[in-house]
């Protein structure tokens, strides 16, 4: 099955972590650009120089933590692996009110950064979590 083997090798090369991360970052930039708020994880430096060493996921978490009043922390049951959590980020980032999402597998939490002037009800959040295949355990609003 040379065809499949060749295809597999091609996919591996294309989907190497570096490529995958870059692609995700560019997608994120595009998404944010559509709403007129550029949220550049790769280049956005708060002056401490730390961001050069951080992944985009870590940067998202840091920036969400700094955004007081617009964050919602959601405790999720069943979020035990990266693949699971990725589903949640994909589903939540499709929501118009969501600017960014940060995940903590250790704490089993999803932290949602809402756009300025936007809101999401508990019911909307619960529906999104369920649509990603998980169960909401608790919601905490900052």
């Amino acid at each position, binding site marked *: 099955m040379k065809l499949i083997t060749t295809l597999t090798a091609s996919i591996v090369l294309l989907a*190497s972590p570096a490529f995958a991360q870059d692609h995700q970052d560019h997608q994120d930039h595009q998404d944010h650009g559509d709403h007129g708020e550029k949220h550049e994880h790769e280049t956005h430096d708060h002056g401490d120089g730390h961001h050069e060493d951080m992944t985009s996921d870590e940067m998202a978490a840091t920036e969400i933590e700094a955004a007081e009043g617009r964050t919602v922390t959601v405790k999720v049951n069943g979020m035990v*692996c990266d693949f699971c959590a990725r589903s949640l980020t*994909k589903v939540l980032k499709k929501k118009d009110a969501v600017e960014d999402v940060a995940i903590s*597998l*250790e704490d*089993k939490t999803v932290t949602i950064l809402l756009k300025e002037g936007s809101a999401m009800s508990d019911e909307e959040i619960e529906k999104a979590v369920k649509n990603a295949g998980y169960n909401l355990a608790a919601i905490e609003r900052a």
Partner: protein
Amino acid sequence: MSSRLVGALCALGAAAGFSLTISEARPVSYPEAWTVQTFNEAERNALLIHYTTTPKAAYGFRVEDRGYDDHVFYGGQHNRLLKRWNAPDSQANLYLKLGAGVAAGDFNTGDTESKAAGFAQIAADWENRHVFFSAAAGTYAVEGAMMTEQSARIGVAPYAAEFGALHTWVMVQVDHRPDADETLGAEELTVTPLLRFFKGPALMEIGYSSNDEPLFNFTYRF
């Protein structure tokens, strides 16, 4: 995860002969997601591309070269999440996979022909951030013949990685194929130690079986 659920899953694995066939990680993804998966092991090489329509259903196309059986299967595949148990520190799933299509090849007879073919499989898994267990049992049927197979996996994570980091699992897969034709080099029971790595949307598995066959599986979701 309740002890009753763990017991039920173990019973399912035992009833299936401790089987579990294919290591199709996350056969149902999130709505509107595409998944590309390749499976290369023991003279069996498969490509599966599927699209998830709802949190419980995915539909796709599968092509599988079954070397020992000397034919290639082409057909549609439906994956259904029958039940998911989300607990604070673990998750368990029960899946049904169905496929129907055409098998084309020599079938070890020397005469090329095409036959209707199909398969059905039930699979269960349970995992937390440190331990993984799965089991599956399936039947593959081609006009005039039916084969059953079962497999099971257990895995441990040497470290608990955070979101976005490289996740690593050390696993052992046991495959039981009672209809394997040993005169063709197939073995009824094989054990495959393997390593699973995943980061972001990509998952890769590398192993080597007791039948001296390499294993390479790959999954990419987008």
